[in-house]
């Protein structure tokens, strides 16, 4: 079983079994493939340089919309304009954090620098946001319900399996963030 992250002399450390690392790697890969823009081959070099992309539209997939939300609530035109200016770099930023986290999954012992820890916490958060959409978690009651699934022997269908995976990533992120908060306190 994985051990909770903790903050100590070596920085933030944790322990993951090979199967858990494999699971996290595939979850991270899934989110990366969602975030990778559809067409990147035939594009205007200027577009690539400044990140402005007039073809960008609000995502139709709920999970993707949660990862890349509108910046305004009641003004779709303004939200779209802002999206065209910023969505590309937001995707790249998220993919960067996810890739950095995946790089740390090569060994059972996980030792994180402050920058690694930030990438891991962002990556785990994005993974959880996507899983939560797949599990249809809309409010705190839904989250409570999913949280009751803690026993792997209960995994009998896709939904219960997803719920267990969600709970595992939640536990892992919580322990990581606690260690990060502790390290911030110590460093002042």
């Amino acid at each position, binding site marked *: 079983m994985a051990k909770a992250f903790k903050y100590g002399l070596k920085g933030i450390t944790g322990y993951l079994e090979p199967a858990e690392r494999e699971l996290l790697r595939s979850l991270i890969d899934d989110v990366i493939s969602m975030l990778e823009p559809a067409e990147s081959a035939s594009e205007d070099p200027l577009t690539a340089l400044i990140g402005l992309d007039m073809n960008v539209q609000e995502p139709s997939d709920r999970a993707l919309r*949660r*990862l*890349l*939300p*509108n*910046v*305004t*609530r009641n003004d779709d035109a303004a939200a779209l304009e*802002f999206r065209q200016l*910023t969505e590309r*770099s*937001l995707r790249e*930023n*998220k993919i960067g*954090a996810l890739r950095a986290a995946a790089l740390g999954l090569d060994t059972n012992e996980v030792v994180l620098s402050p*920058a690694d820890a*930030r990438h891991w*916490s*962002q990556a785990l*958060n*994005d993974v*959880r*946001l996507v899983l*939560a959409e797949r599990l249809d*978690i*809309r*409010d*705190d009651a*839904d*989250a409570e319900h999913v949280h009751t699934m803690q026993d792997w022997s209960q995994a009998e269908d896709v939904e219960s399996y997803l719920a267990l995976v969600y709970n595992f990533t*939640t536990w892992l*992120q*919580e322990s990581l*963030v*606690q260690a*990060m*908060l502790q390290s*911030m*306190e110590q460093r002042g």
Partner: protein
Amino acid sequence: MTLSVALGPDTQESTQTGTVTSTDALTAPDIPWNLVIWNDPVNLMSYVSYVFQSYFGYSEPKANKLMMEVHKKGRSIVAHGSKEQVEQHAVAMHGFGLWATVEKATGGGKDGGSGKGKGKRG
């Protein structure tokens, strides 16, 4: 936020150490926009507090207070500023996975009271 400074051999004498120019001066300080964080059932309370502390540099009590406001009231105004400033914050929040939007401060642009200290909550 790592600061990488790559100095070539020919730059010793031209490194600038004295002046820090701020672009803040170029934006009108009295046009109030709000950065709003919305509640969702997924983001951990500890993580939201961590983001407020690490990104905005808020103290732990202030970060926790804003986080609880998001949790209990469904939303909280966590920063004010020019439109450009709060939009930049919103993108950063989206990078962390928080659900952030920007909005014009209510009460009209002239009021200005909502930008500082005593602004109404919720």
